[in-house]
């Protein structure tokens, strides 16, 4: 036994576990997508069925909106918070801890609480806004086709911006002080420090965090499912929820598998484009 094959023996258990937990489900999903309930091969029938459903394109666009909208605000708000928390002020430790709360709260708890707060009749948000005269009568935040998606994006941003903030803050703290001192000697003000030192230095962190947010966003189901279940009239139906509904509410496991395969391909393309576009940009601090 040479050195290499000895090493192989040691990683074998881990490889077997990985294969069982990842490769097998992936392969099995592929198999399910081209068979029927009895396991007979049916070609692309399942793909045709899911692609012809009216909900599929709508869910796809909703997913783009939800993920795109969430990420833009998560990154902007998270980075701004990180820059703020990087300053010296009294009570910084406490503020840093409080900022983390939304991220620590379990998703289902947060979602249910928000659903209640936004409820037309019982919700505290309508109560406070009508009470103070900002709006004349209660708004159906979660039932109005124009407000429901922005509200869900806002909740998702609230939930995940602390994660961005903490990651960027860690990046900011690793910037050597010399850079700031040199900039100040040159007469740079705060905004110039942000623009020419902080942002370029944490760029790689933001790129990595955004990629994580894209992946999480494409998989997110908790917040929307707990609040609207994809309604009203599919206004907030995103593809992961459509897959969940097909499999576990309609027991159409084969169609759900077909949709998963399509979604996997789309997600893969998005991630590859993203990595190509951002990781290869010249001038990045390595």
């Amino acid at each position, binding site marked *: 036994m040479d050195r290499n094959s000895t090493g192989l023996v040691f990683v074998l258990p881990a490889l077997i576990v990985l294969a069982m937990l990842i490769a097998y489900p992936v392969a099995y999903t592929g198999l399910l997508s081209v068979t029927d309930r009895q396991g007979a091969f049916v070609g692309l029938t399942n793909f045709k069925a899911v692609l012809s459903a009216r*909900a599929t394109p709508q869910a796809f666009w909703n997913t783009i909106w939800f993920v795109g909208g969430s990420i833009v605000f998560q990154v902007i708000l998270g980075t701004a918070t990180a820059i703020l928390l990087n300053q010296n002020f009294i009570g910084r430790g406490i503020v840093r801890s409080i900022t983390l709360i939304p991220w620590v709260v379990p998703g289902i708890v947060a979602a249910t609480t928000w659903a209640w707060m936004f409820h037309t*009749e019982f919700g505290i948000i309508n109560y406070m806004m009508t009470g103070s005269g900002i709006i004349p009568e*209660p708004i*159906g935040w979660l039932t109005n086709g124009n407000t429901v998606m922005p509200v869900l994006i806002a909740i998702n941003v609230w939930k995940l911006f602390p994660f961005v903030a903490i990651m960027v803050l860690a990046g900011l703290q690793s910037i050597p002080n010399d850079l700031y001192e040199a900039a100040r000697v040159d007469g740079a003000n705060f905004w110039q420090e942000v623009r020419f030192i902080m942002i370029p230095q944490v760029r790689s962190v933001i790129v990595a965090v955004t990629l994580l947010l894209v992946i999480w966003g494409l998989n997110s189901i908790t917040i929307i499912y707990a609040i609207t279940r994809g*309604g009203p009239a599919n206004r907030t139906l995103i593809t992961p929820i459509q897959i969940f509904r097909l499999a*576990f509410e309609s*027991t159409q496991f084969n169609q759900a598998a077909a949709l998963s395969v399509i979604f996997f391909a789309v997600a893969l393309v998005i991630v590859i484009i993203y990595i190509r576009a951002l990781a290869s940009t010249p001038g990045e601090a390595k």
Partner: protein
Amino acid sequence: MKFKTLAVMATAMTMLTSGVALAGEVVWWTPNFNEARARELVTKFEQANQGIKVKLEITTTDGLPQRVLTALQSGAAPDIIDVQHAWVNGYAQNGLVVAVDDVLKDREDYIPASLDYGTWNSKLWAIPYRIETHAVIYNKGAFKDAGLDPAKPPQTWDELVAAAKTLSKGKVSGFAITGGGEVGNTIFRSLPFIWMNGGDIISADGKKAVVNQPAAVAAVKFYTDFFKNKQSPASTLENDGTANRRLFIAETVAAYQSGQFDVASIKKENPKIDIGVMQIPHPAGKPTAALLGGWSFVIPSSAKNQTEAKKLVAFLAEAPNQGALTDTFPARKSAMSLPRFSDPILTVFKEMLPYGRAAPNNKNWVQITQAYFDGIQRILLGDEDVQKAMDGAAKDIQALLDQK
């Protein structure tokens, strides 16, 4: 040598974790509202059948369909599961449960619609034990305040519309419909109106979507107009049956459709309300209708102790035991004469039972109802008028019916 010890230990561990239920021990999943009564019945059964042990596992209704489905698919299911009637056909068509024709006794004693649900391929796949339908629960005080006679509730659609109009003033909504929550809430409340008007969602042979035909469209218009005309709360699109009950308890809703299970919690949370119950109003000259709901026992194909499980199900299906276990009404007519079902507030709910119909047994029923529900929501959102929304729903449903 060492490897052998390890293998033995691993096997022992696996057996310890997966083999908690011993052979001969029947595992029965029942929802939490059945727990106390189920325990009594289990004790009785164990005394009569020495050698069979029953292990009760308590489930909760929230998320239960997913949990049951996962257990059935995993191949390591319990021996008996309490499920809602409407779920049974999906299990039967996927080969997840076993036929129970040999367990059923006194077929003619059962309310026929309850057996319709569990039937597929001319075999019976579940034993129903609990049935219920909706009626309309109303606030007698609100009727008096509005100048209506609480002893003479509306009987026809026109009378209901007139009453809802009179009852709706200030913060009070006259007749609350549902337009949110789980799909089933709105199916249970709107499908009976379609039925009593002579329409349906799909044709009897399951080949054609008929939800955009005049009879169905008129009924959907009747249903959704309560919201359009502001007789149902502004929050209708996010309200399910539970939300309507809470609004009724808060006295902002004067009448809504529900089952007898709501009565106890209304009495407890707002004892001031004088509760009235009326039959679901029908179009003049046509009989009323209701969707029959309730619970059945299924025995999973992967159950380890099917013989013992069948014995227990047969025991639970005896009329007095059904009468003891059910939270609402028993599926057997002979059990209905038990004293607990003679409470006067139950009278109207009992009168509704013969009008109860089973939902169609179509393998895509959940998706069909989802397409129909999306149409209802489009109407409530103001996106589309009734005819257009139901045309769209019919197109989606037809595509599902044409699938092989």
